[in-house]
């Protein structure tokens, strides 16, 4: 970020990135729905080197009680990284960064989830980053959407997320850890494709207004690819072999 010195070639003369991808290509993404026994809904995502588990509990009673709302259910999200998920051990207690990410993911999911059908309840979403490789908030949000759908909670749309950014003066899709560290900008985007609403948007780094537009447009393309993978994960669980598991 902020144009830190790069020891690696982020983009070679053929337009190929440090991990072999083209500028408009995402990393390999696999999502599996329904991976936890006790959770109401769950999902596991591998997004490049990111490995993230999402578990959803509820709608259930709200504790502490004063947080409950007579008009609607409430959504609570905890994004958390395991101490072993990053290069240097991370202290297990939630950092300020994790608290902020929990908040932006909550607000990214909130428009999609029809919590007004469940007044006085809470829907708890736990996102555990087992391994981090850049773009964890997007991958966690992708898994969270699938897990909420897997829990059978009515939704207006799935929220899909993917980052776009800028490295080596080029707008790129799905910024990896290396590109985040040495690149020029990172813009995570969360999107509800059927409603055309962008529900998560952040940016670190400098962009002209033209680059800003291009970045959002490219990011939305990535989101749409993730959307298909999310739908497939749900199809695979519920329609694959005819038995109702």
């Amino acid at each position: 970020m902020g144009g830190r010195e790069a020891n690696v070639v982020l983009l070679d003369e053929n337009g190929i990135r440090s991990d072999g991808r083209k500028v408009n290509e995402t990393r390999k993404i696999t999502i599996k729905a329904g991976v936890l026994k006790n959770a109401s809904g769950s999902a596991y995502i591998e997004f490049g080197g990111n490995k993230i588990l999402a578990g959803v509990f509820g709608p259930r009673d709200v504790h502490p009680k004063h947080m409950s709302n007579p008009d609607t259910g409430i959504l609570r999200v905890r994004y958390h990284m395991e101490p072993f998920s990053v290069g240097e051990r991370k202290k297990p207690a939630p950092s300020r960064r994790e608290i902020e990410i929990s908040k932006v993911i909550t607000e990214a999911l909130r428009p999609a989830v029809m919590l007004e059908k469940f007044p006085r309840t809470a829907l708890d979403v736990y996102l555990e980053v087992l391994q981090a490789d850049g773009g964890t908030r997007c991958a966690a949000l992708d898994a969270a959407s699938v897990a909420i759908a897997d829990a059978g909670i009515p939704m207006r749309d799935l929220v899909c997320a993917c980052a776009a950014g800028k490295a080596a003066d080029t707008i790129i899709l799905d910024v990896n850890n290396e590109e985040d560290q040495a690149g020029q900008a990172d813009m995570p985007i969360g999107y509800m494709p059927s409603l055309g609403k962008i529900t998560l948007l952040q940016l670190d780094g400098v962009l002209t207004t033209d680059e800003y537009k291009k970045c959002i447009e490219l990011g939305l393309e990535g989101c749409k690819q993730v959307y298909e993978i999310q739908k497939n994960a749900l199809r695979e669980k519920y329609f694959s072999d005819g038995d109702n598991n």
Partner: protein
Amino acid sequence: MANLSIIDKLKKTKILDLLQEGKRIDGRALNEPRPLVIDTGVIPHANGSARARLGDTEIVAGVKVQPDRPFPDMGEKGIFICTAEILPLAHPSAETGPPQPDVIELARVVDRGIRESGMIDLSQFVLEKDKSVIGLFADSVVTDHDGNLFDTCSYATVAAIITSKIPKWEMKDDSPVLVEGQESDAPITTIPISVTMGLIGDFIIVDPNLDEWECLDARITITTNSDGNIVALQKGGNDGFSFDQLVKCADTSIAVGKEIREIIKQATGANK
């Protein structure tokens, strides 16, 4: 925003009704921020300080400059740390105790705008590579809360940094020693200005006051630098923006940011 009382719901209806007629509850135009007043040098004990009043929201920011150890892997750069706190006297709902997520977000959004713009040339803050650097700590406190803390806090902090005087240290026997009476201006490269816009229904309003803030569907804070480029974004709130709305917000943030930057330049004597 989630727990609207009956009064808030009535207020939201009123605010929406007015917006249909192109009006806001306090009479402003949709893209008009509240009057901004910046006073600098308000805390002589700080190395730089400012009080920003945006309408009735008031924030005091103070900068302390002192030697510190660099972050690991960042031995060729000084330290910049930015915090924010809502004081209990600022609003009846403000509480003491550990910072809530909204306050953590406030500090991190203000920090991001300043850091990502490269406002402070931190490479000039190195006393001895990998061992000793100068740290610039910008702490701000909300003394009166009438909405849009993001921008008010950002303006107060930016003004405090611009007016900071950096003391001089020299390395002697592996530790920094203060050289009395030698201060320099802070190494400023650009002036980042954040502009926060709220979405209510289909309307986008600049600098929402507290009445508006409490019934926003969503909000976005866009920080631009002196060249008119975008350096940081933060979307918040329980709804989303369309692509076209985001393009419009970017244009608005650049236009409004330009006016605000002039006010801050005048108040601080900055020339960037």
